[in-house]
């Protein structure tokens, strides 16, 4: 039987063991997502959008186990004053979490919304995900919307004094977690969302972000370092007039990661930046798939993705800028680069531009290269040992992505972590 014909079977195989959680006011959204999913079918390796990344282990009914990893250090962002929301293997942990109260924001568990008849999140849950299903299907996001076990609805109405920190612990070797968050930023409001941790052996996470006119959201994420963990994440963002969204992701380790970012600039003068720095060693496959739609005038988007790969690691980048008719004065920038530390590693990139407006400035570039031997020798000739010199050049390579983080203290923390992780592997 052809692989395409098997799609419904594979989808039903996965769904067989799953039941829709109690939904309350979001039940219709879950049901619609399930119907959408049945319609699309889960991805297989024939799908053009999954050409570079095999979805099998993300799709199959049972998650492959993943050993726990003791990093032997304080988790990311520990030293920052923040409001902690903790999930253990995909389940909210009220004991470990802070009181979910802070001025300028209202936070509810999705599980609690499920017993309510009305809630603002009902107008967002599954809505941006649905919009993001065209022109390219993202079935694993529909799966998430239908079956998410937990998550939070974050309503940002002011300027909370500290970041909201989503922390994902991985404690069970066989955990299979599905989390769905919705975030609404009201006009003029501003907040920072942090995310860190491996979350589970297999993690499917979806985040829908609606930023109203003049709202600002910063997002900084560090995916967990458990070597065997697998993750597929979707971030759907819709930006209103003069709103700002800046997202950065750090990925070190993890056997499989697929991060999709689907961003729509729907109001004039909006700004969206997505960046990623990843460091992969050995059995490591990391895929950044980005789709940015310009549907308003004078908007700016930036995609900055840097991958350092060695010992057979694979990096993938699929990035698209779609400029719709009428989205004049669009400023779109996209760069994806890999630093290949040996011949065994590979970087597969598919940068795309699709432009239907005439007054736009869009640029994209993708490169793959080895370490600069002249620079390496220069550093060594000054007494810097080869390993340390390679690390310096590696950090320099990643710098353009890390620089996208606006909060310098957070950026510095990430650089310091990278430094120590790189040093440990020498």
């Amino acid at each position, binding site marked *: 039987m052809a692989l395409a014909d098997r799609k419904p079977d594979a989808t039903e195989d996965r769904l067989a063991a799953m039941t829709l959680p109690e939904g309350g006011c979001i039940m219709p959204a879950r049901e619609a997502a399930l119907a959408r999913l049945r319609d699309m079918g889960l991805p297989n390796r024939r799908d053009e959008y999954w050409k570079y990344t095999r979805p099998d282990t993300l799709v199959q009914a049972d998650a492959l186990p993943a050993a726990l990893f003791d990093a032997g250090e304080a988790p990311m962002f520990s030293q920052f004053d923040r409001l902690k929301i903790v999930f253990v293997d995909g389940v909210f942990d009220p004991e470990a979490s802070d009181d979910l109260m802070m001025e300028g924001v209202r936070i509810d568990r999705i599980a609690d919304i499920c017993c309510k008849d009305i809630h603002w999140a009902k107008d967002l849950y599954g809505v941006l995900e649905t919009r993001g299903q065209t022109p390219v299907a993202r079935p694993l996001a529909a799966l998430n919307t239908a079956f998410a076990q937990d998550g939070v609805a974050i309503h940002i109405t002011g300027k909370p004094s500290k970041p909201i920190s989503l922390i994902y612990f991985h404690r069970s070797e066989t955990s299979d977690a599905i989390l769905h968050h919705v975030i609404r930023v009201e006009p003029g409001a501003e907040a920072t969302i942090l995310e860190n941790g491996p979350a589970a052996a297999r993690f499917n996470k979806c985040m829908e972000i609606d930023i109203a006119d003049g709202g600002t959201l910063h997002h900084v994420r560090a995916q967990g370092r458990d070597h065997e963990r697998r993750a597929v994440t979707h971030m759907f963002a819709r930006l209103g007039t003069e709103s700002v969204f800046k997202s950065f992701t750090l990925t070190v380790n993890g056997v499989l990661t697929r991060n999709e970012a689907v961003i729509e600039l729907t109001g004039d003068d909006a700004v969206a930046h997505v960046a990623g720095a990843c460091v992969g060693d050995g059995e490591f496959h990391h895929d950044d798939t980005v789709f940015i739609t310009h549907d308003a005038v004078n908007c700016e988007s930036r995609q900055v993705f840097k991958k350092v790969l060695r010992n057979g690691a694979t990096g993938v980048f699929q990035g698209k800028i779609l400029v719709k008719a009428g989205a004049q004065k669009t400023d779109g920038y996209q760069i994806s680069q890999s630093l290949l530390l040996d011949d065994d590693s590979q970087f597969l990139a598919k940068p795309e531009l699709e432009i239907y407006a005439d007054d736009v400035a869009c640029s994209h570039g993708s490169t793959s290269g080895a370490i600069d031997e002249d620079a390496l020798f220069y550093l060594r000739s000054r007494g810097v040992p080869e390993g340390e010199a390679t690390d310096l050049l590696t950090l320099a*390579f990643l710098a353009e992505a890390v620089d996208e983080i606006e909060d310098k203290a957070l950026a510095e923390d990430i650089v310091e972590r990278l430094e120590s992780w790189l040093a440990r592997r020498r």
Partner: protein
Amino acid sequence: MLEIKNLHVKLEEEDKQILKGVDLSVEAGSVHAIMGPNGSGKSTLSYVLSGRDGYEVTDGSATLDGEDLLDLEPEERAAAGLFLAFQYPVEIPGVGNMTFLRTAVNAQRKARGQEEISAADFLKTVRERAKSLKINADMLKRPVNVGFSGGEKKRNEILQMAMLEPKMCILDETDSGLDVDAMKLVSEGVNALRDEGRGFLVITHYQRLLDHIKPDVVHIMANGRIIKSGGPELALEVEQNGYADILAEAV
């Protein structure tokens, strides 16, 4: 201090002999100059001494204070006290000049079993030495050599030398691309480092630099060999008559 004996070097990738028996001995406290036409092998000599890839030593030896240089990694040579001011300093985007300097100073101290320099002491020393080379705070903050003019790059090389305080300094055409003022600054920087325990090997095309940095011995290199050595007057002779006579004489 630096002893080079019968050094033969070919390119690793090609069957091309570049150094064909170089003999040279630089004593502590002295300044030796090497002059010679383009392509005679001067830069190759400096690269081979500092350990750059791509060359194969087919015969001969090079030692620094008795230690076999050719056996060491580039960073070990640096820690042993060898320094090369590059003819073409490399630009390193993303690595701040200050970070680079501090990393280099500390790496060498570590290799010698010394304590790391304190941040305060380091800053004070860098500022002081940068100032005398007219390197401003902005240049210290910028990525290594990125966007620097030719002259700024050369001054930056001398700053590195001043911070690392090597025993044996090789300067490869540090004067090229410098105007008169920059040449003076660079020469003063070099002269400030002249010391009984330190040797210099100054590679240059022009007598001009040697007016500022007075050599004890001048060597003429041609076609991979030192063909003539003498006192400072040899540099003047080259300046006036070019290499033709000396080359003819050597054949």
